[in-house]
């Protein structure tokens, strides 16, 4: 433990020394700038940077790529809150309550909450990583397909909680979302499903263009047709209510929620291959489930609906490094690219990295940590100008966002079909929103449906072959119990006559 602390301090000193600190700060700012465009993020910059950093020394490579990993997240949160447009799939859960807050003129509060939850969530993840370094390898081996299946089931049960309005409509939307997630190849037999002979759908429905449509396009159509002049309904920034300070301090008013969400984010980040996108959704769901005091107004601008996914999203970044360092197994796309870079620079994950090269590990970790704080601080510093986006007249905002969304959808894979998908889902999302069909269950089911089927198939096959005993997996059992408990709590609330989250009056 002493050597770990020593390495952590050395890494900290290296990252925060001059001029080394310029690397992560510069990279973060560049990432934030690029992430202004919906659909573009840190991954693109990482790919571009690979050949350029070939002859850099390993420490500076770690500085740069650690910052790229953390740099794009908060910009995605900003656009989620201000415009209802998730910058990345993982920011979608922030939209559910962040955007309603902006519409109520409380953008500053939401941004403050997101910034503090983001920075502190990242801090939590980093310290968990440090604490778990001696246990990393044993930990990951325990989490197999059965455990992962149980986690996904828990995530799916949040649909029942976050569905507002008609339960029937929510479940139908969820069913449609799951069916959309099955488009493409069946993972076990490679049979093509629901592609109608088109090449475009063979790899499934691409999520970034779909999210751009379902959120960005929908919100702009809604704005254009709502009669509101601006997102917040106010035309002068001075009339915006909300307080940055109140938002930033909200983490401390909900400490247990923050802790739970950060743990969820870290755990999800640890699981190899998940990608971390589910972290925000699962955290949001558990926050909605556990809201008892004052009922809560989830989906209508409850600050806890911002805190939970933000904390989880940033905690997962550090969590995703755990399988990467321990085994050389990426926790998501960003860590996959990081792994490529590490290998190219002769940094071999595993025992050697965690013993002899621990200092390098901490350079990367502290760079990620600094990057998350920089994005939060920049977000806080720019809260005034950022919040002003909610008073930009729709005659300017709508065309700008429409164009950037269109370009972002195309830039994802260079396919015009993605643009068509964005427009189609934009129209669908608008009609859904207008007529009382919640998009939330559809999105959650879409995210988790395919993963559920894949791991169900693997788990059942392994159980059938006698390789695992599904009924004797304590972690999986615990997660399934958590899912059952959360469903049970919801019914119990209704039976006691206590209004759950969705029932409160809007101000």
């Amino acid at each position, binding site marked *: 433990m002493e050597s770990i602390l020593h390495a952590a301090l050395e890494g900290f000193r290296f990252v925060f020394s001059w001029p080394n600190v310029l690397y992560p700060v510069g990279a973060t700012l560049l990432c934030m700038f690029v992430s202004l465009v919906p659909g573009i993020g840190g991954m693109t910059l990482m790919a*571009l940077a690979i050949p350029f950093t070939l002859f850099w020394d390993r420490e500076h490579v770690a500085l740069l790529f650690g910052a790229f990993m953390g740099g794009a997240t908060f910009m995605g949160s900003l656009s989620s809150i201000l415009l209802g447009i998730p910058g990345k799939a993982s920011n979608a859960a922030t939209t559910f309550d962040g955007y309603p807050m902006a519409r109520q003129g409380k953008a500053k509060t939401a941004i403050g909450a997101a910034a503090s939850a983001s920075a502190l969530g990242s801090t939590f993840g980093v310290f968990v990583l440090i604490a778990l370094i001696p246990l990393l390898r044993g930990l990951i081996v325990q989490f197999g397909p059965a455990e992962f299946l149980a986690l996904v089931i828990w995530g799916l049960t949040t649909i029942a909680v976050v569905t507002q*309005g008609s*339960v029937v*409509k929510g479940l139908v939307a969820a069913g449609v979302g799951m069916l959309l997630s099955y488009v493409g190849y069946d993972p076990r037999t490679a049979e093509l499903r629901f592609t109608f002979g088109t090449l475009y759908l063979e790899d499934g429905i691409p999520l970034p263009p779909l999210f751009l449509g379902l959120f960005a396009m929908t919100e702009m159509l809604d704005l254009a*047709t709502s009669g509101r002049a601006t997102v917040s309904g106010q035309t002068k920034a001075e009339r915006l209510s909300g307080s940055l300070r109140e938002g930033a301090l909200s983490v401390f008013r909900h400490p247990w929620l923050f802790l739970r969400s950060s743990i969820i984010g870290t755990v999800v980040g640890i699981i190899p291959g998940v990608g971390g996108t589910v972290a925000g959704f699962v955290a949001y769901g558990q926050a909605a489930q556990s809201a008892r005091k004052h009922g809560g107004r989830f989906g209508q601008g409850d600050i806890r609906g911002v805190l939970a996914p933000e904390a989880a999203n940033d905690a997962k970044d550090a969590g995703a490094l755990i399988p990467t360092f321990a085994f050389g197994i990426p926790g998501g796309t960003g860590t996959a690219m990081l792994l490529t870079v590490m290998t190219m620079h002769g940094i071999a994950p595993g025992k050697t990295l965690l013993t002899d090269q621990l200092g390098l590990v901490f350079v990367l970790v502290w760079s990620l940590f600094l990057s998350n704080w920089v994005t939060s601080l920049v977000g806080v510093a720019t809260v005034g100008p950022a919040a002003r986006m909610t008073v930009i007249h729709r*005659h300017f905002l*709508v065309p700008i966002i429409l164009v950037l969304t269109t370009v972002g959808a195309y830039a994802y894979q260079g396919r015009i079909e993605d643009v068509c998908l964005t427009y189609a889902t934009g129209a669908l999302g608008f009609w859904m929103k207008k007529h009382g069909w919640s998009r939330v269950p559809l999105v959650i089911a879409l995210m988790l449906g395919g993963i559920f089927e894949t791991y169900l198939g693997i788990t059942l096959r392994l159980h059938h072959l006698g390789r695992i005993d599904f009924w004797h997996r304590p972690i999986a059992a615990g997660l399934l119990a958590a899912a059952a408990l959360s469903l049970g709590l919801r019914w119990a609330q209704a039976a006691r006559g206590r209004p759950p989250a969705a029932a409160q009056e809007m101000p």
Partner: protein
Amino acid sequence: MRRFSPSTPITLLFGAIVGVALWQTLQLGPVARLVPLSVCVPTLALVAFQLALDVFPGLARRFAAFERRELVGVAGVRERVHPEHLLVREHPTPEDPAKPRESEARAFAWMGAMLASGWLLGFALGGPIFALLYVRFHGRRGWPVALAVAAGLGAVIVVVFDWTLNAPLWRGLAWAWLGI
């Protein structure tokens, strides 16, 4: 007289999606169809139920009572909070009830115009031109303002996509047709 709910078209659309999915699922092998079938059948049943709620007001009232109690609890029933209203509240009532329909058609028309503009002229040019026309003719702003918005947007597209990311953008069919 039975009246369809305004959300019925969505119900029918989802019903069509699930119906087509079911038809396709039945043509798959047993392993590939297992999970999709398990989703299709109950979802289709729920769609049918929702359609019945849309069509039969009596049934809708009885079910709404159940949903009120289930969703909002006894306290909510006392407050006469209807679940449908919870979402409708997300959308502030427009000032002029007659306006939304017209502005919706116009909004969709502009959306189509953006798609057409980008498709024909390419995004780097079509996007700013669309913005120019929107701000000038829909927003009824002056030419200087409209040009400034278009120029700024074009600059962002060029700087981010061309200079920074070196990502090729859709060139536009018109140039290919014209042989440029």
